[in-house]
């Protein structure tokens, strides 16, 4: 997993609530056996019309937001399907931070497996960033170490994040390797369970 430390990038506003993972990456892009290359399907139905032509009005198609690395979105971002293709598509497109007032649980969790930083700010702060993103300057700084988002105007917002998740994100640590350091505990648990719930063995 790629580490996330500090990001200076353009910020694109997507002022919609309940953006679900079907919208982030529609089902026709899920028939892949790879993690890479999903950026082409990101927000497909927002970015393209039925003939596959770019919709010029959609925020990520507008020249001032090209190459955006940060997305600021409405409440309950990432609800719906558990597809990890959603964070993969965002990252492949170049977006490595999403800011919202709340995230759905599974999506939020999937972000941390991939080095995509989900930042939760207060609704009024998200609104303020959204307004600034519509102006002439779109550059924000997201600093995970300091837990701050600095808006184009210089206004700084601090955010909360679980310290362990933060530490792993900063280093890009793999969860499986860490869990396997507790392999003995898993062995012990399984041995005990084989005695207390024998019907689950040898199925």
């Amino acid at each position, binding site marked *: 997993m790629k580490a996330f430390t500090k990001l200076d990038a353009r910020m694109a506003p997507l002022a919609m609530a309940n953006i679900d993972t*079907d919208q982030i990456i529609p089902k026709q892009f899920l028939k892949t056996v*790879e993690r890479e290359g999903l950026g082409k399907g990101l927000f497909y139905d927002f970015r393209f019309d039925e003939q596959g032509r770019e919709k010029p009005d959609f925020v990520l198609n507008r020249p001032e937001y090209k190459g955006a690395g940060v997305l600021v979105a409405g409440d309950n971002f990432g609800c719906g399907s558990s597809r990890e293709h959603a964070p993969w598509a965002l990252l492949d497109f170049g977006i490595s931070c999403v800011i919202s007032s709340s995230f*759905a649980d599974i999506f939020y969790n999937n972000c941390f497996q991939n080095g995509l930083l989900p930042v939760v700010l207060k609704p009024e702060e998200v609104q303020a960033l959204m307004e600034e993103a519509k102006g002439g300057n779109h550059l924000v700084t997201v600093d995970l170490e300091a837990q701050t988002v600095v808006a184009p105007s210089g206004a700084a917002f601090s955010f909360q994040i679980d310290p362990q998740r933060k530490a792993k994100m900063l280093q890009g640590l793999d969860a499986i390797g860490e*869990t396997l350091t507790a392999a003995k505990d898993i062995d012990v648990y399984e041995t005990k369970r084989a005695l207390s719930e024998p019907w689950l063995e040898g199925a």
Partner: protein
Amino acid sequence: MSGKTLYDKIWDAHVVAEQDGEAILYIDLHLIHEVTTPQAFAGLRAAGRPVRRPDRTLAVADHNVPTQGQELGVGAVADEEARLQLQTLERNVKDNRIEFFPMGDIRNGIVHVVGPEQGRTQPGMTIVCGDSHTSTHGAFGALAQGIGTSEVEHVLATQTLRQKKSKNLRVTVNGTPGPGVGAKDFALAIVGAIGTAGGTGSVIEYAGEAIAGLSMEGRMTLCNLAIEAGARAGLVAPDQKTFDYMMGRPAAPKGASWEMALAHWKTFQSDPDAVFDREVVLDAADIAPTVTWGTSPEDVIPVTGNVPAPESFATPDKRASAERALDYMGLTAGQPIADAKIDVVFIGSCTNSRIEDLRSAAQVVQHAFLNGRLVAPHVRAMVVPGSGLVKEQAEEEGLDAIFKAGGFDWREPGCSMCLGMNPDRLAPGERCASTSNRNFEGRQGRGGRTHLMSPAMAAAAAIAGHIVDVREFLP
């Protein structure tokens, strides 16, 4: 000290260790399917890691499979990418000695139908699957959650999941429902009451007289939609109905083991003095047959209601979403929802494709047939049983004959039109009365318009040709 909730008890029984403030939670059953696993197996191969407990893992092919011509085999699946994904799963389960019900096997079907049907799903278990509707299995008093592909890889490698504990939310439904009202209506009414983010960060335990009154199939429908209320898991405490359902199933314990298991399962109840972080109470008598009007499962109204006006919503965000939803759905604020003419009816999905669902729809179709009514001529209607075994049972009961006589297509098992990853999907602008779980934009096909409802409501809509109150169609 106050007592423990059902969720607390399952959690405590599965914590292997704590690391960095996260629990390493043992997983009793890992269900897998073709869409969310290829990258996980590739990750294991790259790291040279084996699957720790192939015997606690079960694979099915459901999301991508066509619902016609399954006997021709995976090689005949027309969609090249779908075929490759299905073949990749076949190779991965073979390489790792995981039990697999391939397409066409009578035991195959939608993963959340197959687990309970085989007796793999048991009370007090922890269950995961790379699919958000894994919450379904909570109907048995199992902690069942959807996970992402990285977590699938983690579970394959370690048989554990790293997690922080969620909060406890109890949703109590008291009273007795009126005619034509069932689990799907409860579930939609609950999502409507608490919103699609209302359960975020929580596990929901469903309780109360009306929940106890539901069959196992009904409880599965209810828990299936816990995720649409934002909760990763829903739970119903196991009771005699649970045990009766499980007895004799292929993977259920037998003989002395059954008695031992039963004693264990019975301990999974919330203590009377358990404290929940939040409580929501509804009365079943207040719930009407319910449908969705918009593009979020929280956009619900009684079938007798009118489409709401965007101005009636409290926040600018919600008003904007409602305007967009009305435009997408081709509806006008204030119109009676029962006026909405439909083009397609889909009865199926992990929400509503079990035998009881098919019986309740067939009852409506049969009653209409005896009164000389068939599926409306402009409507394309299909029934997709949840598994080969559900299909077989329905055929033994003659339900297929009723559906076919009424004008429905009778298909082979799979996820089908719920998510449009296979040939079954809506064309742009088509309006569908659907028993599935998500009415998101484009979910059932680009530009498709989904109205969620119960199987009986969907059957009635097929005959009327528009959304209609099922109570007009009951014998």
